[in-house]
């Protein structure tokens, strides 16, 4: 049944069901008793929590996060342990000689949905043992503010050159440019276990297991 109509609004022409006005008792209309009930609820919480606070009986926010009472984690003092596969800020892995493992292939920056990786590729000089064999990032910049921490860059990297296992979540800084991590910053980061090396072994020119370059001398 439609409710009695008010004014000249053509309710009968509009399709839909009128929502009946909720019935209210006198005590509800009189404010006071309902307000008292409400304040009773907040007071119960207040006294319980104050008591727990005074007596130092707050539930442990890490072990017991779902219990009643104050289960706030007081962040910088208390920290929830991060899982091993937590994606923190990026790091660039090192080769054995400390140079970046990255070969500036731009796969990460291609995969990045936030387009926050900027790389400039460079060639190792003519004398370098890696000349022609590898290239390296002249610039490697990640805008950690724009990054959405999806980890696609890590998945995309063919060289295990970029990782997100630092366990460091993005720190709040004062200004935007502090979020722009350059190559050196990224190279300086270590994994949660303190590792900086890559784990994608590859024989490199001076290594013993790098096959000899067999040139048949004098043959043209």
């Amino acid at each position, binding site marked *: 049944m439609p409710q009695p109509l008010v004014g000249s609004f053509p309710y009968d022409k509009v399709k839909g069901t009128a929502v009946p006005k909720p019935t209210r008792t006198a005590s509800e209309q009189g404010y006071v008793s309902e307000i008292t009930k409400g304040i009773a609820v*907040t007071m119960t919480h207040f006294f319980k929590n104050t008591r727990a606070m005074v007596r130092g009986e707050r539930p442990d926010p890490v072990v017991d996060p779902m219990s009643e*009472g104050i289960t*706030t984690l007081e962040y910088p003092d208390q920290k929830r342990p991060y899982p091993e596969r937590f994606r923190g800020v990026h790091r660039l892995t090192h080769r054995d000689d400390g140079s970046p493992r990255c070969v500036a292939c731009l796969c990460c920056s291609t995969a990045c949905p936030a387009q926050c990786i900027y790389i400039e590729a460079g060639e190792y000089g003519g004398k370098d043992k890696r000349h022609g064999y590898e290239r390296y990032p002249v610039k490697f910049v990640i805008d950690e503010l724009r990054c959405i921490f999806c980890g696609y860059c890590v998945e995309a990297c063919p060289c295990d050159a970029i990782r997100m296992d630092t366990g460091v979540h993005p720190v709040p800084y004062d200004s935007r440019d502090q979020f722009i991590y350059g190559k050196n910053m990224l190279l300086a980061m270590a994994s949660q276990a303190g590792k900086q090396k890559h784990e994608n072994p590859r024989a490199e020119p001076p290594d013993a297991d790098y096959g000899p370059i067999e040139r048949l001398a004098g043959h043209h």
Partner: protein
Amino acid sequence: MTLSSIIWTVVKILIVVGFIVNLSAILTWMERRQSAMMQDRVGPNRAEITVFGYKIRLFGLLYPIADAVKMFTKEDFIPPNADKVLHSLAPMLSLFPPLVVLGVVPFTDTLCLDNLHEVVQKNGVVASNWHFFSSWIEQPSCSLPGAKNFIDGCCVIGCQTAGVVHQPWAEHFGTCPANVAPGMIGAIHMQVIDFNPGVLYVFALAGMGIVGASIAGWSSDNKFSLMGGLRAASQLVSYEVAMGLSIVGAIMVYGTIRLDEMTRWQGDHVWGVFVQPLAFILFLTAAIAETKRAPFDLPEGESEIVAGYLVEYSGMKFGMFYMGEFIEIATSSALLVAIFLGGYNMPFLHRDGITIAVGDAVVWKQHIPHILVILMQAGAFFGKIFVLCWFQMFVRWTLPRFRYDQLMKLGWRMLLPAALANIFLTGVILIAFDRTGTEFQERMGVVGDFVNLATAIAITFVQLWIVIGFFGSTQPAIRRNAFNKRARSAGEIVEKALAS
């Protein structure tokens, strides 16, 4: 005006302003901490100072200091097209009135300066060689040479106009009339200004709160500010009417508009809340509305108009509004205490000590020296204010904001008629009461004593409950783990289903 009276006035101002300003600072902490406790949060606890290598946090009590530092060092921004003078004037206008309102509220009974260590009775009798356990010797005269006058039971030295006990000048100002030789003052009225308009002064100043808010709204050159200012003006005007009318009933009962006399009436009979319960609720509601806080925070309504008239304020100017708001809580609490909750009076605490008596039957009696009585009264007064502030916080953190039309309806269509009805009813009862005989009136006096007794018991019980509940039992509280409980019951259901 003598030098001593000036000094005393300054001291009283310092007491009142010092109390109220510090209370407002503490209230800012209380607001955060209390709301946190109500909402299962931790609340403020990070402001810290290092003293001798120790990091001190004081449960977040340092927050007001940090706030002050922040507000003083922040940019003081004035919008380019704002009215610069009015924009700067507005915060002062809204801070000043609540600060001075308390000038007429007495915070203890009249102080007999020369009998601090003695027991002073109502009629001016002083027991000089008071001892806690021994009986006391009545000395029905002023112990000081040449002092024969009593004001509120205190000796007045130097006013030698014998026989005039209720001399208006001396009574109201604690000094001698002009034609009398000046001398030392023996009786100090414990309120800053001692003059007749009483509550009218309160309302006059409270009315100025509108000016601050609406000037702020107008001068900010911001549409949200303007709307906030308009809302503030109309809200304050509306609720001032209800507020003013709500205490008319109380004035009729007390027979005075002076707050000190109202307080004394309540000390002699019962607290006003018991004779004027409806007026108490109306006044409380209107007072909360006057502070512009939830559920009446429409002038700031952040979901609709950002922050209302505060939008364009920053730094200490904003701080002044903020302080004014908290001071208003304190002042409104003080007024409620003075008018309805007995002011500095506690049940059975009299000028000469504690006398637990119902009717003529004295249950227990203990004389207490004057200075201790005064201190207890001060403690009671400030303690009551504190409890009321605490209660107002509950209201603010429990109730959601009204809609604007609801606000207006509540003011004009509920509070105002109720206040009028209260006046009418009070009048009828007063006339009826006057017609009854003395016997009935005496019986009512006994009822009042019972009420006092109940009040005293209730207060004691609550205090005990808090102390025992908080510190008493060493048994660890059992925490219910809602999540585990739910998980357990789900497991049980599955098990049962498997078993069947």
